């Protein structure tokens, strides 16, 4: 490699600094959560319950609520997204397909806080009536909105995978007299399996990382959720809610533990994504 000029060195320096900052974030959170981690209570921190008055700062209820909310939202979003992707790729009338995808991309751009705001005033009262007791702020309420929120991301991945099937296969299927729906089921869908997995992992990441929907709709009580109709506080909401506490308290330090858990979960999902998708992850849609 030839020697770099000053300007090229500057480019390199900027890139390396930005990259290092990503790693530095984890270190910074570890340092600030150290008093909690250091006292040898790592297990009781991850597995214990949240009783600040009794000196117990476990984040297990939040972890459970986060996972429950994210997984049920993804399970609900999979059929919605798969059906819409089928329509956009093969089943809708051809003139409708690209407007359909434009709408999906627009949906992906709707601010999260707007979904939350609309749901607080329109969905929560409906849920309150339907459940018959309580405030209507439940994990189920948040799940319904979160599924709609993450669906566009998943659709974009699914459509990308279904469209990436080589043209030759597709023409061969046509020549054999396949109906569009047969081609979809027996050619495109099996071929697109890695992209479908990637889309689901992406959706899970978005659902786990979302703050506003859980915060505005799930009720936020820091107890272990026992059903979808109970209230819950996600890891992300916990960070947003404890922020007001005294900076030197142990409660405050626990939010850095939440941050570390979320960071590691994200890194794990990125690792899975890189294994499922053959192309470099930077070339994702």
């Amino acid at each position, binding site marked *: 490699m030839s020697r770099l*000029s000053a*300007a090229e060195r500057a*480019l*390199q320096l*900027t*890139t*390396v600094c*930005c*990259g290092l*900052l*990503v790693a530095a*974030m984890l270190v*910074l*959170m570890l340092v600030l959560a150290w008093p909690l981690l250091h006292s040898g209570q790592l297990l009781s921190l991850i597995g214990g319950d949240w009783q600040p008055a009794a000196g117990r700062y476990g984040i297990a209820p939040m972890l459970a609520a986060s996972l429950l909310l994210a997984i049920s939202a993804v399970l609900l979003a999979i*059929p*919605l997204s798969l*059906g*819409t992707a*089928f*329509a956009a790729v093969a*089943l*809708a009338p051809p003139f409708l397909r690209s407007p359909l995808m434009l*709408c999906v*991309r*627009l949906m992906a*751009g*709707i*601010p999260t*806080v*707007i979904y*939350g*705001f*609309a749901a*607080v*005033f*329109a969905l929560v009262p409906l849920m309150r009536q339907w459940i018959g007791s309580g405030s209507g702020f439940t994990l189920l309420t948040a799940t319904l909105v979160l599924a*709609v929120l993450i669906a566009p991301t998943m659709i974009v991945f699914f459509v990308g995978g279904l469209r990436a099937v080589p043209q030759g296969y597709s023409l061969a299927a046509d020549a054999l007299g396949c*109906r569009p*729906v*047969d081609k*979809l089921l027996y050619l495109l869908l099996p071929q697109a399996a890695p992209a479908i997995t990637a889309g689901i992992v992406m959706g899970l*990441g978005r659902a*786990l*990382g979302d*703050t*506003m929907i859980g915060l*505005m709709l799930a009720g936020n009580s820091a107890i272990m959720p026992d059903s979808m109709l109970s209230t819950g506080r996600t890891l*992300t909401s916990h*960070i*947003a809610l404890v*922020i007001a506490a005294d900076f030197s308290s142990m409660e405050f330090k626990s939010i*850095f533990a939440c*941050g570390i858990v*979320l960071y590691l979960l*994200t*890194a794990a999902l*990125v690792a899975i994504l890189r294994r499922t998708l053959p192309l470099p*992850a*930077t*070339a994702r849609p």
Partner: protein
Amino acid sequence: MRRALGTLTIAFSFAATLLLFAAVLFFVGVIVYRGWSGLAPGLIFGDTRPLDALLLRRQVFDGLFPAMAGTLALMALTMTLAVPAGLATGIYLAEYARGRGKALLSLLFDILAGLPSIVVGLAGLALTIILHRIFPGRIGPCLLISALALAFLVLPYLVRSVQLALESVPRTLRLTAPALGADKLTTIRAVLLPACLPEIAGGIILAVGRAIEDTAVIMLTGAVASAGVPRSLLAQYEALPFYIYYISGQYADPEELQRGFAAALLLLAMCVVMLLAAQLLSTGNPLRRRP
């Protein structure tokens, strides 16, 4: 049997599409229906005369002006920080980085792209705490810290759009400048960057759209419910998305709620317009049509 499965798939697909669109239309419809009537002249400036408010002669207490000014200042500052860093990083990754270094760097940016925005906000807060220890009483949560954190949040979007645009420049175009004797940096500046300007502009607009709607980062790093128009980089400020979140839980009377819906409608309109613009820019580039 196969026929039945096919028919079932079609029915399922259409039902899913309809259900998803109905759900989105329901939420958007609620915002438009209830926000529309709030789009009155008094929405932004309240009872203050617009000119007085714009010249900062008088504070606006019952309008969206402080929140809009805060969001505008925040976006300007965020993009001032993020665009140079994103351009530099995108160019370096596309044109210089190779092998292991490139793999490691793109892994880090992939993680950054996937991080929940509240974690980025938390890092901003951690930075604030450390700065607060170094300069006691001078630095707290403020506009500057928010902009730094938001810039970091949207950095991967910028990097990715610059890198992808550069890497997809056709070889024929890529070779012209070196053939004329230009060095690498000149080639990038005079040929490659101009050729992918529309994609880069699209990426920047997309990044603004991502930054403008984010609530989690700013609620940890300095956005508050009432601060007036931002007066300094080191002061707390108001912002539209935070205002919307705040109203949803803390509104005192129907008028305030009405203003919340109108603010939501404004934010929604801004995001949709920006997304459409980005879409147009990234699909309409004639240089990108390969033979």
